């Protein structure tokens, strides 16, 4: 049994409509794809100082995707 209040448990178990999930996945894909592309380009061009920030964007995007997948699909 979870220690979370019932209304929180219910909210977590909520399934979002497939079209809404699609509409959320598309811009999230842009964020992840372009940040990964920029990491590769920065590495190629020797701009190592920008890479940690871009990796933080990537990591946050993957966390959001995991949250969506685990809880709302």
């Amino acid at each position, binding site marked *: 049994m979870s220690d979370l209040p019932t209304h929180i448990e219910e909210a977590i178990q909520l399934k979002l409509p*497939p079209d809404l*999930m*699609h509409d959320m*996945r*598309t811009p*999230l*894909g*842009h964020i*992840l*794809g*372009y940040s*990964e*592309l920029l990491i*590769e380009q920065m590495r190629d061009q020797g701009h190592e100082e920008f890479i940690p920030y871009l990796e933080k964007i990537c990591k946050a*995007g993957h966390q959001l*995707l995991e949250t969506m*997948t685990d809880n709302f*699909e």
Partner: protein
Amino acid sequence: MRRILLVEDNEMNRDMLSRRLQRRGYEVIMATDGQQGVTMAQSRSPDVVLMDMSLPVMDGWEATRTLKSSPDTKDIPVIALTAHAMSTDREKAMEAGCDDYDTKPIELTRLIGKIESLIARFSNDIVQTEATT
């Protein structure tokens, strides 16, 4: 150089994925709807097609059925790409004739693995077919 036909109506998806694939050494040609995708597959003979399924003019399911029903294009592997992650979407894509399926957001290493695996499989199939005829 392997040639990939990317059929995708979303401009940012097209731009982002084509740049990433080109960096990995692929030639990428692009179509923005299913009808254009079919025409380009016929005229440019790509090694693989990456097919978004929700497309204007002719959707990805119909475009795939058209490619797989033609002797000229039936041996071009088609990978369905969709931002829908439900198992029914995968089944629907495979029923239309897609050879594999991947979900957006694209994980590039995984997608390239599928591209190379399908190209190798189809090359072997063609060699075996020619050997038995």
